């Protein structure tokens, strides 16, 4: 009898806060900049420099904690996590250890099969490391001839979110990450851009016989910079572990470097050389005591969260559409368009497909003009609609000139073109009349081509059928 295996997945997510300044100094916090221009004695760890915590970063962490239904600590402290690495100038990272700002929360993830509640063990605040650039190699540390360090990123505020190991499929893991990202972006805490590293995550994966509650040896997957890669990497790791167990082997605790182009994930380092980080309370900082009024003030700034909106919109549309709209940050625009009289399903389709393809930021779109455009979609040529769509994010965009370019549906204008097409394709005409009805599309296509796409295809189709039927 073969065993059914249950994956056990836990996530550790880092989100870089977009505060104006860094976590413990007044340097600009932001992507880019010439290397080592956004630095000071504090973030370069000069002798005697001391950290001063960024109040805004603390508030934003609390805000995220509230959105994740965490308990906000009435006393939180920073710890030092000690290790040597060129990107860590103090040789310790100021982080949080056993007294984090936020703990014991949850995020409910709607799925096609119902809602799944994922436990949030903690959400804490820490500082980011700098960036090592390994010279003249693959970009990885192995075999590098030199390492350059850019301290611009060093000391940026990072929130670390750790889930309980109660995710049991790659799909839920992926949905959780998408939902968390959307939540963070909406709260205004971070741009959470995977490609810029402002959101990063590690995944811990193990498997166990279904029904068991044991926790087997887990592996850690790193370097997954898209949600799809994450899902793929998790699937692959689950399959690998199952295969090992089914062959009577054991899984080693290790960190795997995900390479989307390779068949397997390569081991990075064995946990056998596990670091002793010698955590101890950071003596340069005093304990944090978030005031209850401050916490309530922050709670008041939180609007309807993505989970609740997916739940609500799924009452109107399918779960799938609701999920795409909300996690894509499209649902507010969708609601505006629907309020303007558009068909909910059609509006969702346009947003989830054609609009997403343009890459335009939904918040740049004027909902009124967008509604007008969607409402006339069936009446204007496709090319005109697509052109209009690519400009909806422009300042001062008006649907008017596009809507005015209605498709040609006047039979007297179309009939000569149709006659010419029929004339030019006697073979196809014969086949059609012989019963090959599928060729209708061919004739319509030819007419559309002749008219430069300006004809209304539904009218053309009607007229072609009439003429050929004669």
């Amino acid at each position, binding site marked *: 009898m073969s065993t059914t295996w249950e994956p056990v997945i836990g996530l550790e997510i880092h989100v870089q806060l977009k505060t104006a300044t860094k976590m413990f100094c007044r340097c600009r916090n932001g992507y880019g900049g010439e290397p080592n221009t956004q630095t000071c004695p504090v973030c370069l760890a*000069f*002798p005697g420099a001391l950290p001063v915590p960024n109040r805004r970063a603390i508030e934003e962490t609390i805000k995220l904690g509230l959105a994740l239904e965490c308990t906000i600590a009435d006393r939180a402290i920073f710890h030092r996590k000690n290790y*040597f690495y*060129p990107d860590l100038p*103090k*040789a310790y990272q100021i982080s949080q250890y056993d007294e984090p700002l936020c703990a014991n929360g949850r995020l409910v993830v709607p799925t096609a099969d119902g809602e799944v509640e994922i436990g949030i063990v903690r959400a804490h605040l820490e500082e980011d490391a700098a960036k090592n650039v390994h010279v003249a190699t693959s970009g990885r540390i192995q075999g590098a001839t030199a390492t350059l360090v850019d301290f611009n990123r060093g000391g940026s505020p990072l929130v670390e979110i750790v889930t309980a190991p109660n995710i049991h499929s790659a799909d839920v893991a992926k949905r959780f990450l998408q939902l968390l990202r959307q939540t963070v972006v909406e709260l205004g805490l971070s741009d959470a851009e995977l490609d810029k590293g402002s959101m990063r995550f590690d995944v811990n994966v193990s498997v166990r016989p279904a029904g068991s509650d044991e926790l087997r040896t887990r592996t850690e997957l790193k370097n997954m910079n898209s949600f799809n890669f994450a899902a793929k990497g998790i699937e692959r790791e689950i399959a690998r572990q199952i295969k090992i167990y089914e062959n009577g082997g054991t899984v080693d605790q290790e960190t795997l470097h995900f390479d989307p182009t390779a068949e397997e994930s390569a081991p990075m380092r064995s946990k056998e050389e596990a670091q002793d980080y*010698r955590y*101890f309370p950071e003596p340069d*900082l005093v304990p944090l005591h978030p005031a209850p009024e401050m916490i309530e003030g922050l709670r008041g700034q939180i609007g309807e969260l993505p989970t609740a909106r997916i739940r609500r919109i799924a009452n109107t549309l399918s779960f799938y559409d609701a999920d795409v709209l909300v996690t894509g940050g499209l649902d507010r625009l969708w609601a505006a368009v629907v309020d303007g009289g558009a068909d909910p399903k059609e509006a969702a389709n346009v947003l989830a497909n054609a609009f997403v393809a343009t890459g335009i930021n939904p918040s740049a779109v004027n909902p009124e003009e967008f509604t007008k455009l969607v409402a006339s979609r069936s009446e204007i040529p496709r090319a005109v609609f697509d052109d209009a769509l690519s400009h909806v994010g422009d300042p001062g965009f008006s649907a008017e000139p596009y809507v005015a370019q209605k498709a040609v549906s006047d039979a007297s204008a179309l009939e000569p073109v149709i006659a010419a097409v029929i004339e030019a394709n006697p073979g196809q005409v014969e086949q059609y009349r012989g019963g090959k009805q599928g060729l209708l599309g061919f004739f319509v296509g030819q007419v559309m081509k002749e008219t430069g796409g300006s004809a209304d295809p539904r009218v053309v189709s009607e007229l072609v059928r009439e003429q050929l039927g004669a």
Partner: protein
Amino acid sequence: MSAGIDTLRLTAEEALALVESGQVSSVELWQAYRDAINEHDGELHAFLTLVDEPDGSGIPIALKDVISTRGVRTTAASKILENYVPVFDATVAAKCRAAGMTLLGKTNTDEFAMGSSTENSAYGPTHNPWDLSRVPGGSGGGSAAAVSAGLAPWALGSDTGGSVKLPSAFCGNVGLRPTYGTVSRFGVVAFASSLDQVGPVTKNVRDNALLYRIISGRDENDSTTVDVPPIALPEGTDLKGLRIGLPRQLNEVEGIEPGVKAACEAALAKAEELGATIEECELPLSVEYGLACYYLVAPAEASSNLARYDGVRYGLRSEGVDFREMVMHTRHDGFGDEVKRRIMLGTYALSSGYYDAFYGTAQKVRTVIKREHDALFERFDVLVSPTCATTAFPLGAKAQDPLAMYLTDVLTIPANMAGLPGLSIPCGLSDGLPVGLQLVGPQFSESTLYRLGHALEQAIGFDVVPERLR
């Protein structure tokens, strides 16, 4: 002597009056001290770096070489910082500059302030102005020797386990270790963050109060600083109503020299004559466990604070085939034996599996020490004891015996562990060497300590000029 200025006797307050009234220019005054340095520092070695141009309008000062000075080399008496020139001023240095003070130079210390004799300086020891064959105490022996020998009107030291109080006692100066949190540590090369505190080293008590006024206060760059109550300049000698406690365990400590005991008893008799009440009391736990507790907490914090000296960004760099080896070689070559010893002790105390037994327990004991002191301060305004059981010992006497060296601080450490202010004043001579009297009060009681110190100073009439220089 330049311009008739007797730097051996001139107090800072008098020097200030001379400059303010225009009798002596700031430059003339600076030059007078510079001449004294040129004459005496060859035999004393109080200075590691001299400034060649006065840069203020007021009176001169010498700063311990753990205090960062913009544009002036700051070595912490370590090879690892041999060529390090800070790009910023420590807050205390900036405050001195803002008050118009001109920097004479940077004074010798045990490497990273770790020691009790200044013999651990990577640049050679400082000699005691009272007897060149003896140590000036440590770690701030350079500042104490400079003030005592008239090479600076006043100076700043830093006190972790007694590094202001002990050298002041050995050199016949007045030295304050302020309440923890009243003086900014920003820019002060860190030894043990939860204990380090910068304090004034002066010829008399009023000078000390004047300088403490200038350097103390909340600093936005040091989160552990607090608002400081106004500091009264001591006047008169009336001690009516002042309740003095004599902790038996401090006053009867093993190995106390008869001459030290006699000088302290004579000073207490004066205090009683001036109206103070004196009563014996007990401080058993603080004295029994203070030193052991200190030698867990201070090295633990030091092991982390000194981890930044990795050769990457500043200071010494020794070559190695990779990052790890470069760091190892740099630290091997750059740190002296005592620093390495404490890094190892501290690393061990923080290691996983030992943390609870060592660092964790030490922090709990620290709370016990605080409570024991707090209880006494319900009955007493000031606790009095010798600053050290002995007078200055010969150079080399304890250099090969770290434990004997550590025991030198057994009387100063308990109050430091409790974060309390302590003032050491000279109270007489024993075999021709100064004896220090330690006055310890509750948090923020500096004004009380100054009141008692000033009254005793007047009553005792101690001559602060070393006999061999008179």
